Each structure stands twice: as structure tokens, then as C-alpha cells.
């Protein structure tokens, strides 16, 4: 009995000592949002160990909802997916903007995110990066593709790929000349619009090669020429352009979908201080530039421009004309229950023969 006690005490000590000996920061984020280079640098500077869990918007919300906001110190949801989720499940804690180094952020973006993530008197997000969804096109195989409607174009039969996720529905709705964002708060009208989008998707289903779910797998299919027109993120198109000039990101005629991914702190985060440290660290201009140069996403860091590769600006110029920039449709916050409507519609598309 004595021995068991000693063992138990030793075990507890060793466990707790290992827990306290090194501070950790658990980040729930997207692939590529925390480059190894920066993680190493951060760990060296602060002595805080960074643990990454890669995810996407939906899974991020589900994970935090399951633990009621515990298990992670920092999350990176898109700005439009914060307010309604926060209202319903209270999985984040209010952001203390006094701890954020606002000087190194693009002011207008910070204000927009603050506004869009506000619930009650508080706001919950700090912008990290932005980008757009549009078309990744192999010009050699699909020179004419320039809008979402080309995802349903018979000319590219068997060479089309997109995600069965809400951006596709929204993009196609815009391509139909409608404005889904305007109908966000009218569930019935929104559902009717989405149903008509789904009808078109079902009718054009024989044309699509597959519905991609993994970004790398999509890029591989475009790279190999198996896919000529895909809906995807701008950075993916630009990455491929560096390898093969025929492939590029195309801002769709009816408007690229603009998103901003943020930092939000889960309600039961253990190491909030470290979370703020990370936010300020990775948004410091030289660090933000490293991230952008690597991943091609736009950064919310104000001073990063001077550290950026020339290629980054070139990419943007090549894909976006002035008109295209004005035409970017930025996601407004998603009201509650919209996901259920979309979920059922997407299931229907997937199940259709």
C-alpha cells in the first residue's frame, strides 16, 4: 500500500512538473497559418511551446462547442462565423484589444472585424489574414473560364472540381445575378435562392469530376491537368502559377468572395497571456511577411508590405483589376440556422444521381 502511495505521489509530481516546466500554447488553426519557421522563432523568443491542431471553420466550431470552449488557447475562425456562434454557444471570451498592438494592424480591417464579431458590448476577433475564393483555372485547357457559372459549363465536362460547402453555393448564387448576402436575414428567401442554385448543381452534376475536400489534393489535381476549372482560394492558384504559368487564380466576373480569418480566444483558454503574445508576434510586420511570402495569403499586418516578395504584389495585380477589387464580396456575419438550410441542400446535391 505504501509503495502504491509513493508511486502515486511520484506520478502526480512528474505529471505536474512536466506541465509546469514548459508553458504551452494550444492553437486551433488552419493548415499553413503557423509556419514552422515562425513557431520555432516564437518558442525561442518566449520559451512557450506551441501545439497546433489543424482544422477548418466547421470543425473548429464543433470542437469548441463540444468542450464548451476548452482545450485550446487560441482559435482562428473566419470573421463571419463568430458572432452567431458566440451568441448561441458562448465558446469565446471577449477580446481585450488593449493587449493587441493595434499599430501594426491595418486599421480599417481591425475595425471591420471588431464590428462583425460584436456580440453584446464586446467584440471577439482580431484579423489575421485575408483572401478570396474564386476560380483556379488552367488557361491552356479552359481559356474562357471566368465566372462561377463555368463550374457548371458543359465545355469543361469532367474537368471541374469544387467543394460541397457554403462558398460554392454563395458563389453560384452571385453568378446567377442574385445577392445571397442581402438575403442572409430572410431565411425563406435564402432557402429558395439556395434551392434554385442546388437545382442547377444537380443538373450539372455529370460535369463535375469530384467534390474536393482537401486543398492539397485539389492543387495536385489541377497541377496534373486532371482538373481545368476549380473553385478554390487565391493563394492556391498563385502557388500553382509559380510552377506552371498556364495555371492561375481568376477573380470571377460576379465577384470573388472575400474572407478574413481572425484570432479568437476560446472561453476556457488556459494560457490567455501566451495567446496575446502569439497574436502580437505573428502580426509583427517581418513575421507577417514571412507568413505571406510562404502561403501567399494577404496579411492584416500594416507594415508587412516592405518585407514582401515582389511576386506577391504581382500575383494580386495579375488576378485583380481595379474593378475586380471593388467587386469583392466580403462575407457578412452568418446568422444562426443558415448552416442547417445549406447543410440539407448540400446533402441533396451529394445524394442526387
Amino acid at each position, binding site marked *: 500500500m505504501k509503495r502504491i502511495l509513493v508511486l502515486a505521489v511520484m506520478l502526480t509530481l512528474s505529471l505536474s512538473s512536466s506541465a509546469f516546466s514548459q508553458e504551452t500554447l494550444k492553437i486551433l488553426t488552419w493548415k499553413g497559418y503557423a509556419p514552422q519557421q515562425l513557431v520555432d522563432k516564437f518558442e525561442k523568443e518566449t520559451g512557450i511551446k506551441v501545439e497546433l491542431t489543424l482544422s477548418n471553420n466547421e470543425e473548429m466550431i464543433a470542437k469548441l462547442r463540444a468542450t464548451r470552449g476548452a482545450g485550446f488557447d487560441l482559435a482562428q475562425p473566419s470573421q463571419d462565423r463568430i458572432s452567431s456562434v458566440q451568441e448561441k454557444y458562448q465558446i469565446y471570451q471577449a477580446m481585450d484589444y488593449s493587449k493587441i498592438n493595434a499599430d501594426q494592424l491595418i486599421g480599417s480591417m481591425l475595425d471591420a472585424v471588431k464590428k462583425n464579431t460584436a456580440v453584446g458590448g464586446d467584440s471577439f476577433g482580431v484579423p489575421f489574414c485575408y483572401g478570396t475564393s474564386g476560380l483556379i483555372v488552367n488557361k491552356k485547357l479552359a481559356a474562357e473560364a471566368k465566372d462561377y457559372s463555368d463550374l457548371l459549363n458543359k465545355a469543361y465536362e469532367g474537368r471541374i472540381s469544387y467543394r460541397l460547402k457554403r462558398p460554392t453555393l454563395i458563389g453560384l448564387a452571385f453568378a446567377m445575378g442574385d445577392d445571397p448576402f442581402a438575403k442572409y436575414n430572410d431565411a425563406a428567401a435564402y432557402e429558395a435562392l439556395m434551392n434554385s442554385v442546388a437545382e442547377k448543381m444537380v443538373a450539372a452534376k455529370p460535369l*463535375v469530376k469530384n467534390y474536393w475536400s482537401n486543398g492539397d489534393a485539389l492543387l495536385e489535381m489541377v497541377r496534373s491537368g486532371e482538373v481545368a476549372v476549380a473553385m478554390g482560394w487565391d493563394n492556391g492558384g498563385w502557388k500553382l502559377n509559380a510552377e506552371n504559368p498556364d495555371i492561375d487564380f481568376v477573380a470571377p466576373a460576379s465577384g470573388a468572395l472575400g474572407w478574413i480569418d481572425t484570432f479568437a480566444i476560446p472561453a476556457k483558454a488556459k494560457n490567455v497571456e501566451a495567446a496575446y503574445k502569439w497574436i502580437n508576434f505573428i502580426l509583427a510586420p517581418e513575421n507577417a511577411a514571412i507568413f505571406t511570402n510562404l502561403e501567399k495569403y494577404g496579411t492584416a499586418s500594416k507594415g508587412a508590405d516592405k518585407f514582401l516578395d515582389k511576386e506577391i504584389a504581382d500575383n494580386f495585380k495579375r488576378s485583380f483589376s481595379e474593378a475586380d477589387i471593388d467587386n469583392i464580396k466580403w462575407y457578412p456575419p452568418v446568422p444562426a440556422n443558415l448552416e442547417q438550410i*445549406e*447543410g440539407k441542400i448540400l446533402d*441533396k446535391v451529394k*445524394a442526387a444521381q
Partner: protein
Amino acid sequence: MKFKLSSGLFIFLTPVLLWLFLLIVIPQIELLLMSLRGENNLGEPIWTFANYLHFFTEEIYWYTFVRTATYAIIVTVLTFIVTFPVAFYITKVVSKRLSVFLTILLLVPFWVSELVRVYGWMILLRESGVLNHIMLSLGLIDKPVEMLYNDISMIMGLVYTSMLFMVVPLISSLEGMDDSLIEAAHDLGASKWTIFTRIVIPYAAPGITSGSIVVFMLALGNYLTPNLMGGKNSLWFTEQIYNQFIASFNWNQGAAFGFLLLLLSSLIIWVGLKMSKQQLGRVLS
């Protein structure tokens, strides 16, 4: 009770019981309760069977289940057809030493995770994949053929990932069969086909049944393979559960689907056992 629970045994069992209770029973109960929750028109939480009714009233849901179950049955049958000759060859045709070697050879691919194996198939079958490359260079085809993203490749993938779970019970039940049973039947005038249907199959029936149950459940509960290999038409019931939880944020509906999957698959297995006149107890022993 065959023996009294002594305090020693009780202490010994406590961690196991605790583990079972905390990690299996409680989450199941929570899911069950969740599946019975819903909202009324005013958005207030209420107790309701609506989530279950939904499954039957909304065509797409039960259609997906029927489709998934049908494919799972097809996969089970195909897996049996593919693995039975293999099991028979290993246990009854080759020498003992070779049979051990062949069994190990069968097991080796399963030391790798399912994800890796499915990607392996994708590399083989994709339009710019190995198989197309070979056929092109041999001049068998003049344009690459897409062999992925259809029901056939999905079924093939499912059969492949389930094979092990059929072949192992088959080997173990055929191994127990004395070769003289086959010879005796032959001697008594039976043709090869009769021996197969009247002697070998009935003898291996418990193994076939247990293998089939496992393969059926695995195919039904698989998420990865239908998703990756099936492509655009392959809505699988598990995917629908995932979508309810993750994409639609409707955990109540997802939980109800989960329980329906459990109930309906149990029902299918029960019917299967009745039809093949097998007893669950005998099959599992």
C-alpha cells in the same frame, strides 16, 4: 451469479467498470438524450421525436441510409466472394508452412493505416495515375480514363479495406475443418459443387456469418473510403451524420441519425441471422 464478488476482485474490476461507464455508457446516454431534444417554434428547447421522424419524412435521409445499407450488403457479399477462395486456398490447398507465409502476406498491408491504403489506390487509379500510365504506354487506350470517383471504385475500395475482417474468420473456421469431410462427401457421391454448398459452406457458416457482420458494420460505418474514392455520388450515411454535427451544427439531428444507424443496422443483422438460420451466440463464440 456464479461466484461472489470478493472485495479483491471488485478493486480489480473497478478501473475497467469505471472506464466502461465514463467513456462508453455516459456519452451514449448523453447522445440519446441529445437526439430527443429539439426546438419549438419559439426557439425554446423541448423534448421531441422530431429528429427521428425527420429521418422518415425527409426522403433524402432514408434514401441515403437505404443506399448505404444496400452498398454495405453488396460489399459484404463481394468481400466474401473474393476472400473465400483465398481462405480456402490458404487452408486446404497449400502446405502448412506456405499457408503461414501467405497469411502473413495477407496481413502485411493492414499494418498501414486505412488512409494511406486508400491514397495508394487513388494513386493507382486516378486519371494521371499508374494504371493509366501503363495502359497508355502499352497502347491499350489512347486517352486516360478516370477510374476514380464512381461507385465501382468505391465498392472496390471498401472490399479491399474490409477483406482482412472476412478472411481471418474464414481461415480460422476452415482451418478447423477436417479435410476428410471433403473426401467423405466426395466418396459418398457428391460433386465438387455439392461439396462446396453442402459441406464447406455450412461448416464455415459461423465464420462466414461473423465475418459478414464485421464487414457489413465496417462498410456501413466507413467514412473515409466512400468519401475519398466514391467522389460525387457517394453520399454515405456516416457522412450525413458528420454533416449534421459539423456543417449544419445540428447535433440533435446528428445524434438521432447515429442511433438510427445503430438500430437499423442491428435490425439488418438480425434479419440476416434469421435468414441464414445462424445464432449470434454460436457465431461469436
